[in-house]
């Protein structure tokens, strides 16, 4: 593939406003486990492979149903063999393209392979089978030369274009297998050329696909680094160009608070895109210290996992946004009168209060409020007012937080966190299909051990209708978004019904913090309290699990929407726990909230 084509794909990913979902209509769930898990579609070919795999899976299922009901028709066994083997190769190719759907289709293949073996043996002894064997051998003999010639053409073509060559071989193989599938291995003996050809082609095409993926990820990665560099330069340039309370950003002349607002919005879009690129790195990650196949972008090679320069990029983005805001407050408050200074600080507090909750541990609340106090200190009268406002509101918020925290404990009772509830309901053992391996080789994160058809119904049955759980870190994607989701807890997360939150408590909080349209907050902490209360952001929720959906963890992280910054957070890079990232699963619970706790108040059932 040419570099130009790779660039197009990479840019498409960067500008790709994908759904907070996937390219598939429905995800498999405890209510309907039949759909396969979805693809992220980073590589264009994945869409075609996925669509074909869906067809093959359905064909296998239909054929098996027919055969168990009415007994096999003459060509059923051969056809079944062809579809089953087709499903296997599609699953392997999807895995090569970094798609978790490949691992799940692999599980479906194993289910169908069992069915095939069963049908093969059931049919084998019948008189019809004997007739078919004779016919098959004759047909295979007749077309041997044609097949050998085709194989020769395919391998000539493979030198230039392995994927096209493989496609031609696939078609020839399918024709062969639908006839040969009825024969046992010894019977096939003289006619194994197609199998040998496939086994020879497979690693060639696989290496080619994996190299293409690697190149596409590398291209997307360097584009992202360039974009981040440009973003940081633009922030510095705007800050440096501050004059008479005006700043130029994105071709517009803005006030300081307006610029901070636009910068923060753009910054969080960049955070989401950066997290998507970080997720992509997991496709090529270093499995262990002696994994020589890993190629570092930055020259820094980890013992295992992904290039550490990505954590640095994320930290740099967070620091860049925070530092620019702090410096701007400092520079944009020089030489103002007492009354103008109060107005300016109120504007900054209001604006930054829309974003400060996205950084953990009050880091931004503290940094921005310190900057506000420092700026206020330029005018003694203003300093007193701002300091007193902080004093009063911080005391109030401290007590309210303490009260809400205790209410949360009481409301929680013995209810377990969502992750524990679901983990407990989907154990995987030698005899039980599930997502968490238990026993001697217990693994603490969810992997694809079975198809959704096997594992999800068991999970649904174990949960029952009234499974309650506590969901932490519930975020709303934006002020007017209908989406409330929780951050992942061990790859398990929740999506909440969008009509549960009542913003009535926000106006009470506003009054308590002495804020209204004519009196802005004088601390970011107070502004943030109101913002999050109005939106219903950063909540802890207790509710009932209605349904659980399965998806590939990689798919979820690569497919994040550009407004999904709150989902992945700016404090840490998205991570995958294991050495085979394409096997890792996320379980998404649809939850009906019963009660919830905002930082500063709780609302009971």
């Amino acid at each position: 593939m040419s570099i130009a084509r790779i660039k197009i794909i990479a840019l498409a990913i960067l500008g790709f406003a994908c759904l907070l979902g996937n390219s598939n209509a429905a995800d498999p769930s405890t209510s309907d486990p039949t759909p396969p898990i979805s693809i992220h579609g980073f590589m264009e070919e994945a869409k075609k492979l996925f669509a074909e795999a869906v067809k093959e899976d359905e064909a296998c299922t239909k054929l098996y149903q027919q055969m168990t009901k009415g007994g096999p028709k003459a060509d059923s066994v051969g056809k079944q063999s062809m579809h089953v083997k087709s499903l296997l190769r599609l699953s392997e190719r999807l895995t090569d393209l970094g798609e978790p759907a490949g691992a799940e289709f692999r599980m479906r293949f194993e289910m169908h392979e069992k069915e095939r073996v069963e049908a093969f043996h059931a049919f084998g002894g019948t008189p019809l089978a004997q007739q078919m064997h004779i016919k098959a051998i004759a047909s295979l003999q007749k077309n041997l030369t044609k097949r050998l010639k085709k194989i020769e053409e395919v391998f000539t073509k493979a030198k230039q274009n392995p994927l096209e060559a493989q496609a031609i071989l696939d078609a020839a193989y399918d024709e062969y297998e639908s006839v040969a599938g009825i024969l046992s291995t010894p019977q096939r003996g003289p006619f194994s050329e197609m199998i040998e050809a496939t086994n020879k082609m497979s690693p060639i095409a696989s290496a080619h696909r994996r190299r293409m993926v690697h190149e596409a990820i590398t291209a997307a990665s360097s584009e992202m680094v360039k974009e981040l560099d440009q973003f940081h330069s633009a922030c510095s340039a705007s800050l440096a160009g501050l004059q008479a309370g005006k700043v130029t950003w994105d071709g517009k002349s803005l006030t300081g608070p307006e610029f901070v607002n636009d910068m923060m919005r753009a910054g969080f879009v960049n955070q989401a895109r950066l997290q998507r690129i970080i997720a992509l790195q997991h496709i090529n990650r270093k499995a262990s210290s002696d994994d020589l196949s890993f190629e570092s972008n930055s020259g820094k090679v980890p013992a295992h996992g992904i290039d550490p320069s990505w954590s640095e990029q994320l930290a740099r983005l967070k620091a860049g946004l925070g530092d620019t805001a702090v410096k701007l407050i400092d520079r944009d408050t020089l030489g103002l009168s007492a009354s103008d200074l109060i107005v300016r600080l109120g504007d900054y507090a209001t604006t930054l209060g829309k974003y400060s909750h996205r950084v953990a541990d009050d880091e931004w609340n503290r940094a921005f409020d310190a900057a506000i106090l420092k700026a206020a200190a330029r005018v003694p009268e203003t300093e007193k007012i701002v300091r007193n406002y902080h004093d009063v509101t911080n005391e109030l918020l401290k007590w309210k937080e303490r009260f809400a925290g205790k209410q949360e404990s009481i409301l929680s009772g013995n209810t377990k966190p969502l992750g524990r509830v679901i983990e407990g309901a989907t154990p995987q053992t030698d005899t039980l299909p599930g997502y968490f391996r238990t026993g001697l080789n217990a693994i603490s994160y969810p992997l694809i051990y079975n198809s959704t058809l096997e594992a999800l119904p068991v999970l649904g049955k174990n949960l029952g209708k009234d499974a309650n759980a506590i969901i932490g870190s519930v975020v709303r994607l934006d002020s007017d978004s209908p989406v409330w989701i929780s951050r992942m807890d061990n790859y398990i997360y929740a999506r909440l019904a969008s009509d549960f939150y009542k913003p009535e408590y926000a106006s009470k909080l506003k009054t308590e913090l002495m804020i209204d349209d004519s009196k802005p907050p004088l601390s970011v902490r107070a502004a943030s309290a109101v913002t999050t209360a109005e939106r219903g952001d950063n909540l802890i929720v207790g509710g009932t699990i209605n349904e659980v959906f399965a998806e590939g963890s990689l798919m979820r992280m690569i497919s994040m929407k550009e407004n999904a910054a709150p989902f992945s957070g700016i404090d840490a890079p998205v991570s995958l726990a294991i050495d085979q990232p394409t096997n890792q699963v996320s379980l998404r619970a649809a939850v009906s909230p019963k009660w919830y706790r905002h930082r500063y108040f709780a609302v009971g059932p």
Partner: protein
Amino acid sequence: MVENVQTKTSSVVKETIAKVVPMGSVQLSLDEGIEVPICSARLLNLGGGRTSILQIRSYGDDDRDAVKSVLFQGKTSAASIQELVGQTVTGQLFAQSDKETGLWQSDSEGPSSIKILALQDTELVGEILQSKMVRVDGKSGYPSGSFRAVIVKP
């Protein structure tokens, strides 16, 4: 002669006692009763657009996590501490009597009030008027109390 020495000694002792720094105190009849031998008051000016706040609290900056603690914050138009005497100030009252469920706040429908009775030297003396408070587990209480709050210049 001896009498004069005794009188002189007594007045020195009295002066010394008067210079011991007062810490204030507050009590509130909640749960087993809350009594804290520390209490301070601040009159906080919030600038042109906002009414000042009288803050009375039973902890300093170093012991914010004290188990037994009380906070009152209410609006007042008094321009000085002196003007507060005789006033009733209405606002929010919070109290903690223990680390489990002993956490209280003013009822959302009806705020709490304090009455300033006197200004004695450096202390504001007053009553916490009876009002409805709600505990974190939903239980209601109707406490009253009193305080001597050392005035701190903000």
